[in-house]
């Protein structure tokens, strides 16, 4: 019989009910919710699920902006033994439908206006309004459920990664994965305490944002500042000035944008720590931030499959340009195409092993076999060099690259561009613009087409109608032909 483990909803929340019940767990604008309220409403949501007859192990999709409701639903699912699936509320309708079908979600919890809400019939939909109206609705349900006792192999929750050129992949995690990341990253790396107030620009549906705004702070009794949408630099400055957080999490692009709008370092006076992940942090951004704020940005590397950071520069031991050293509890190998370890200083694919590696991809035995290797190793698909215990990211093993901490799949952008009448052939690749990787499009125009500002604007509009904004090319290079191999394969490296 499989061993049982502790339910992470209990593990994260219950200790605070005695220790600090009235302390603010969540802060959004002028509103706060205490640990007691968070526990209470989460239990009520668990009761709601039980009333609906939703059985342990079933999946419930959550497409909500970061909000109090998002936490109640997430923890309520865990307490009922139901598997919450956190999904970007801005997901395209096609991907939203795919995720609902792929996860076989028995219920979708979302705002009534969400596009994906129209994809399911009323029996599978729980439309919820703002936090206050959701709480009023929950008040009708009991606040005393016996927390579900999970087995070690039970899936606790699932995230979806949009990593590859194909469809999103479900990444399941177990209850004990959370305990592992809390101990290794939360306590040891970030040294988080109940006195911290944290703010993350990355959202809960993103593994980095999930750790930043949910597991790391709640495990220690800290307070979390929420922002429902995608904050711009001026929103971030307003939040910092108003809520005075001690720990700030963002992605490199946002640090870079903040440097552009900051007049002085005063909004950052309350911070003890800044953390960056999601894509490589340029050494120049690190240096400029340090000179302006006096704070070193802790640069880290992780992915949905590792749940949180696996490589990071600990505070005070920064190596700019490096992703850092292994976070405690993690092991790494760098291997060649034959899977053999390469010597220090040589590049290869990074394999990772830890206590928080996703055991498989949901419904994807093919990808699982490629990625989750024997011995518990995860093939990250990233190329790294290791020197003196520091890891240096060299790029993706395939052509994907990250902008704004989000994957750009060149093939998707190329497909979108090819449907524009002015484009005969094209190829998209990541190239640096002011030191940051951005999508460039190399275009062979259709006959008689001349480059103009108007045409470029039109082509960008054309792409952005089909794809997320971070995939829109920032530069178009018009060429007569694309470099190709004798078999007709485009040689991206020659562009």
């Amino acid at each position, binding site marked *: 019989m499989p061993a049982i483990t502790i339910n992470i909803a209990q593990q994260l929340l219950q200790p605070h009910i005695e220790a600090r019940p009235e302390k603010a767990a969540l802060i959004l604008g002028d509103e706060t919710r205490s640990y007691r309220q968070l526990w209470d409403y989460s239990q009520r949501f668990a009761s709601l699920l039980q009333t609906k007859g939703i059985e342990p192990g079933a999946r419930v999709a959550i497409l909500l902006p970061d909000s109090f409701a998002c936490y109640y639903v997430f923890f309520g699912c865990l307490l009922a033994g139901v598997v919450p699936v956190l999904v970007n509320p801005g997901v395209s309708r096609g991907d939203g439908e795919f995720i609902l079908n792929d996860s076989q979600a028995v219920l979708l919890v979302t705002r009534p206006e969400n596009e994906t809400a129209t994809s399911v019939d009323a029996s599978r939909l729980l439309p919820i309004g703002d936090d206050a109206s959701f709480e009023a609705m929950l008040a009708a349900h009991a606040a005393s459920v016996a927390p579900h006792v999970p087995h070690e192999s039970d899936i606790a929750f699932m995230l979806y990664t949009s990593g590859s050129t194909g469809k999103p992949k479900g990444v399941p995690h177990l209850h004990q994965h959370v305990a592992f990341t809390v101990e290794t990253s939360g306590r040891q790396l970030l040294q988080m305490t109940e006195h911290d107030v944290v703010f993350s620009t990355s959202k809960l549906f993103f593994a980095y944002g999930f750790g930043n705004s949910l597991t790391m702070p709640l495990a220690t009794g800290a307070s979390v500042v929420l922002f429902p949408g995608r904050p711009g630099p001026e929103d971030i400055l307003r939040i910092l000035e108003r809520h005075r957080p001690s720990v700030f999490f963002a992605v490199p692009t946002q640090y870079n944008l903040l440097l552009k*709008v900051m007049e002085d370092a005063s909004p950052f006076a309350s911070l003890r720590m800044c953390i960056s992940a999601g894509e490589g942090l340029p050494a120049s951004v690190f240096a400029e931030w340090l000179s302006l704020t006096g704070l070193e940005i802790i640069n880290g590397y992780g992915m949905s499959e590792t749940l949180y950071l696996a490589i990071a520069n600990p505070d005070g031991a920064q190596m700019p340009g490096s992703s850092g050293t292994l976070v405690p509890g993690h092991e790494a190998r760098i291997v060649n195409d034959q899977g053999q370890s390469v010597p220090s200083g040589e590049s290869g694919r990074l394999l990772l092993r830890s206590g928080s590696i996703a055991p498989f991809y949901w419904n994807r035995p093919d990808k699982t076999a490629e990625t989750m290797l024997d011995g518990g190793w995860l093939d990250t698909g990233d190329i790294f060099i290791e020197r003196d215990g520091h890891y240096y990211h060299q790029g993706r093993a395939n052509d994907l690259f990250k902008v704004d901490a989000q994957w750009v799949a060149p093939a998707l952008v190329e497909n979108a561009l090819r449907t524009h009448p002015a484009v005969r052939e094209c190829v998209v690749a990541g190239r640096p613009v*002011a030191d940051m990787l951005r999508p460039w499009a190399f275009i062979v125009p259709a006959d008689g087409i001349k480059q103009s500002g108007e045409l470029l604007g039109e082509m960008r509009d054309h792409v952005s109608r089909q794809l997320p904004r971070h995939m829109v090319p920032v530069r178009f290079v018009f060429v007569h032909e694309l470099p190709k191999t004798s078999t007709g394969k485009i040689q991206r490296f020659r562009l």
Partner: protein
Amino acid sequence: MAVTANDVLELMKEAGIKASVVASLKNDVPLLSQGMDSLDIPIVAAAVEAKYGVKLSSAQSSQLKTINDLAAFLSK
């Protein structure tokens, strides 16, 4: 080489920023405070790098907040 604010505005139009947006920009106000976003800024930076053959560091790009900043930088 003297590069004027008008040259920078012209460059933005050539790079595909809508003419109506460019026409509404003030030369001395940060572009990010005038509705330009995380896509527009690298579009302008890429156009500057391509047209003037310069390689901007991210630090320089951070300091070049306004059209006047860009014109002054390119005139050096």
